[in-house]
């Protein structure tokens, strides 16, 4: 959680340090740099190396192991002795071929479910989360209470919220009592998807709310004051000041949620149940294979999911907000954007 709050602040800090160095400084620099680089580069490498080491142990190694494991098939049963052989046969890309061949229906069903959940839940969470953040940002009596109240669902572990919602969506649960009809939420069908989406949005909209709130708090009051003096209404202020300025924080939040949603597992598993086609996600396929002691195919599913999440994250960063992982040069662009509302103000007055 602490980590996630970094970007908005970092953006602000960067905005201040953004302006390019003066020409005089720039001319003098090269000579100094040659001497400084060797030493500071070595120093930098030294300082970064523990991080890289940890990353390669906890991220790179397991990923490579999973990739390697996905090339092995399940252990075979010897019909004579009745025992499973002790080693896994190397099958090359057969696990992948099976996923797109024999198990293609199930895979694509899970793929579309995963995608559907990601798009719909993140979409809803963004809208609701931003609304929550705006409410939490307001100064009014009992604000602390509202803030705490909004954050409660986020504090509930997913497995517990799954059980909670299963109770609500029971055949004679609260959900049915409220709508006055008996819908069997946990049976196959579109209603099962709806149940998952409701539970997921309830739980994670506060997360987006929290990050957006952090983003809102770094917007200087003067900007709004200026806008008010210029006579712009609340909607206009939101659209032209709040939203552009909170965008970096919002995009980080959405990216996190997107990746979270793409590997959704516990909620549909607990709320609706395993092997329900309507809510089966890619993670559930991998878990199903692993639980049947077929680690090769399970790794293959995990690798495919990894690639999918990776591509989505990449596309997200490229298409929606290149400044998410921007370097110094792009930071300047950022600061330019921050000034935009001010620029627009001059237009308005003119």
């Amino acid at each position, binding site marked *: 959680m602490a*980590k*996630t709050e*970094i*970007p908005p602040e*970092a*953006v602000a800090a960067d905005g201040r340090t953004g302006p390019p160095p003066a020409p005089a400084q720039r001319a003098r620099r090269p000579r100094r740099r040659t001497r400084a680089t060797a030493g500071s580069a070595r120093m930098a490498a030294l300082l*970064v190396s523990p*991080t890289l080491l940890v*990353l390669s142990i906890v*991220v790179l190694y*397991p*990923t490579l*192991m*999973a990739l*390697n*494991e996905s090339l*092995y098939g399940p252990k075979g*049963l010897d019909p004579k*002795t*009745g*025992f*499973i052989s*002790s*080693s*896994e046969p190397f099958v090359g890309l057969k696990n992948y071929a099976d996923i797109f061949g024999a198990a293609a229906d199930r895979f694509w069903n899970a793929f579309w479910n995963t995608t559907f959940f990601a798009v719909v839940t993140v979409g809803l969470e963004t809208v609701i989360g931003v609304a929550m953040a705006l409410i939490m940002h307001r100064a009014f009596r009992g604000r602390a209470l509202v803030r705490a109240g909004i954050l409660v669902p986020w504090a509930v572990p997913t497995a517990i919220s799954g059980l909670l919602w299963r109770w609500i969506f*029971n*055949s004679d649960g609260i959900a049915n009592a409220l709508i006055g009809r*008996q819908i*069997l*939420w*946990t049976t*196959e069908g579109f209603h099962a998807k709806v149940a998952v989406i409701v539970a997921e949005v309830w739980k994670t909209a506060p997360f987006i709310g929290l990050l957006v709130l952090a983003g809102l708090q770094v917007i200087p009051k003067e900007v709004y004051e200026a806008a008010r003096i210029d006579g712009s209404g609340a909607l206009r202020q939101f659209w032209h000041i709040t939203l552009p300025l909170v965008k970096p924080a919002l995009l*980080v939040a959405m990216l996190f949620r997107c*990746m979270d949603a*793409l*590997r959704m*597992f516990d909620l549909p598993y607990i709320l609706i*149940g*395993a*092997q329900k086609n309507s809510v089966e996600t*890619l993670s559930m396929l*991998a*878990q*199903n294979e692993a*639980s*049947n*002691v077929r*680690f090769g195919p399970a*790794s293959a599913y*995990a*690798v495919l*999911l*990894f690639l999918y*999440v*990776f591509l989505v*994250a990449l596309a997200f960063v490229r298409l929606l907000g290149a400044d*998410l*992982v921007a*370097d110094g040069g792009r*930071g300047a662009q950022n600061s330019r954007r921050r000034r935009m509302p001010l620029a627009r103000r001059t237009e308005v007055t003119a």
Partner: protein
Amino acid sequence: MKTKTSKTTTRAVQCSAVLAVGGLLITACGSSGGSGSGQSATTSFEGRGPITYVAGKDTTGTVQPTIDRWNTLHPKEKVTFIQLPTDADAQRQQMIQNAETKSDAYTVLSLDVVWTSEFAAHQWIDKLPEQRFPLSRMLKPVVETAKYRGGLYAAPASSDGGMLYYRTDLLKKAGIGGPPTTWAQMKADCAKVKKLPEAKGMSCYAGQLQKYEGLTVNFSEAVNSAGGTVTDANGRPDVDTPAAKNGLDFLVGSVKDGTIPKEAITYQEEDGRQAFQSGKLVFLRNWPYAYALAAKSGIAGTYAVAPLPGLDAPGSSSLGGHNMAVSSYARNKATALDFITFMTSQDTTATFLKDASLAPPYASLYDDPRLIKQYPYLPVLKQSILHAVPRPRVVQYGDVTSAVQQEAYAALTGTKTSAQALKDLQQDLQKCTAQ
């Protein structure tokens, strides 16, 4: 600094997606390969010393006192109780992880009856010497669940069978002499009961039809009760038969004509029990555990149990329960064997029956008048277990039960005809038992 943080965070999150999914696989992957165990046929149970006993969470509080009793008798061979989660899948998962890493942390495993074949085939558990256990005094179907390819791989510790719970007060008022023995009788009885003013809004029957292990149990029971089989004695699937179709048709037809209420398709054990206790059901298929709980509810004194009904004779139940096995990678196996003998002895299982209402494997305990006084359902349960057919005993049980649930559920919800569902099921089962 900013660049670094957000870049690594992003990357870390991307990777953690796989990590989250593959966390389990990876821990297991590290150990693939290695030397195979050559002790398949005969294991010498040697070595004495401290061991561990691994089972699901003990909610009854009776396991630790029993282990304490053992520990005072054998101070040099102390047993430590390792409690796993209540959820059976999670227990299996942890035991498999322990086996895949060839760890000696677990010695004696308490296995669900349906896991025996899988654990034995993977050589995660040792073959046990049959003469060490009084198998002849145990109920035969229970002993069968502990065997794989004719060899004994575990010792029966407890059993469980399905029973038909019914409302004695309503049946009596409707002028029905005794509980039904066939499905047709049950439906006829229901029709009579439903005419009573007291039975307004009641439904007839429910079992466990949610898409989970309970559906496999209920489907197998329906098929077996109609004279069919899911898999034969050798584990070969034989489910695309007219008899099996009669069984599935009972479930499908009952859902269609309202004998089984629509919401019962979401019922697990607890949902059904609650519906029965709140007077929504005339008949209920459930395990013995519900008996004592119902006695504390509003229907206390107005219900009884009977063997499950069948197509044209009393039906047959599936089997629940646990067996105890020795992990192949454990140390101090001589102690382990002694401990299993102790835990599965008639005395110990009688204690478990008295204090935790666990159904014992020994036949004579079901006829003990004092125990019957405490648990009036014991004679019915004995009949249920004696006529029981174990769920498919196959190595790939996980795949088999998934396939059964998939097709039975499709038939129940009407997305497939029962004939088509059984045909597809036969194909699926052949595929997953073929390897």
